[in-house]
């Protein structure tokens, strides 16, 4: 599958990593819902680090939609809230 980390680009990640990433994603989700900023930061960093270490960057001239899109590394809780409600963050 193709995973995009916003601000960094796209990576090809083997489908076998799905379960592991889902676990990390659930932790992130809980932190977002709880409004727990430190937990959120840790969970986001963990998820992104895992994707970076598992994935291989796509060639720059590849034009393919991603299967999953992850927030940028220095996003805060508010950024992610806006991102998942589609409020204003994504231009166009």
């Amino acid at each position, binding site marked *: 599958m193709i995973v995009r980390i916003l*601000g960094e*680009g796209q990576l090809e990640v083997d489908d076998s990593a799905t379960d592991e990433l889902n676990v990390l994603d659930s932790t992130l989700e809980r932190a*977002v819902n709880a409004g727990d900023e430190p937990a959120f930061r840790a969970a986001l960093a963990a998820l992104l680090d895992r994707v970076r270490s598992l994935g291989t960057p796509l060639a720059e*001239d*590849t*034009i393919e939609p991603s299967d999953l899109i992850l927030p940028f590394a220095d996003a805060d809780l508010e950024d992610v809230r806006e*991102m998942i409600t*589609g409020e204003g*963050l994504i*231009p166009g």
Partner: protein
Amino acid sequence: MKGKVAPMSVMKRVSLIFKSKANKALDRMEDPRETLDYSYQRQLDMLTQVRRGVADVATSRKRVELQMNTLQQQQTKLEGQAKQALGAGREDLAREALSRRAALQTQYTDLENQYHSLQADEEKLTAASQRLQSKVEAFRTQKETIKATYTAAEAQSRIGEAVSGISEEMGDVGMAVQRAQDKTAQMQARAGAIDELMASGALDDVTGTQRDDIQAELDQMRGGQDVELELERLKGEIGAAPAKEIESGPAEDGGAAQTSPARPAEQPQAGDGS
């Protein structure tokens, strides 16, 4: 918020938002091939925007760099003043100069952090700009191929893929530019405040009293010392000169002291010889 939305993951929700944006772009056109041209035009606009973003961040970084240099010069000056003051036995003045230097160091550290942050943004945006550039070029080739080879109906799925792929990239880059611009604007405001401080002289003089009063006092002190030294030198000169001159007229003493400061080094030998 927690109820129905909660089961869906962050990754999926972010992805969905992007996809819906891409789909809107696709739905806008009747002939899918028009979508290609429209999208390409927007890509070119976005490239211009990213490049402008990179330039803005670079300008901001350079401004911070200049301010760092100024602050550093100021710190060096204050350290010199502290040494000078200590040498003259004025520990109070030295202490004052050093405490001002410490205050500037705080400002400097703040600027240094801004500098590194802007540098990182610049690198990220430059990379994003290169990625987009490669994709735009690839898109242009695909666009021409699709237009030349396929009928409108056949082209649809290929166009869908290319357009959603590229609009995701543009969404990403657009966000990055936006963030960089917001941050740059904040830093410009802070940089402006520091420029004003520098212009007002408040950074020379953190205590907010008189402008560079340390230097004034040091100058005054040194002025005083110079006079003392000069006096000593003159006394020495006169002492070394034939004793009768001193005996004969104290009025000449005054005359020598008046002319002497102008030519401190040459006067003794020339005067003695004649």
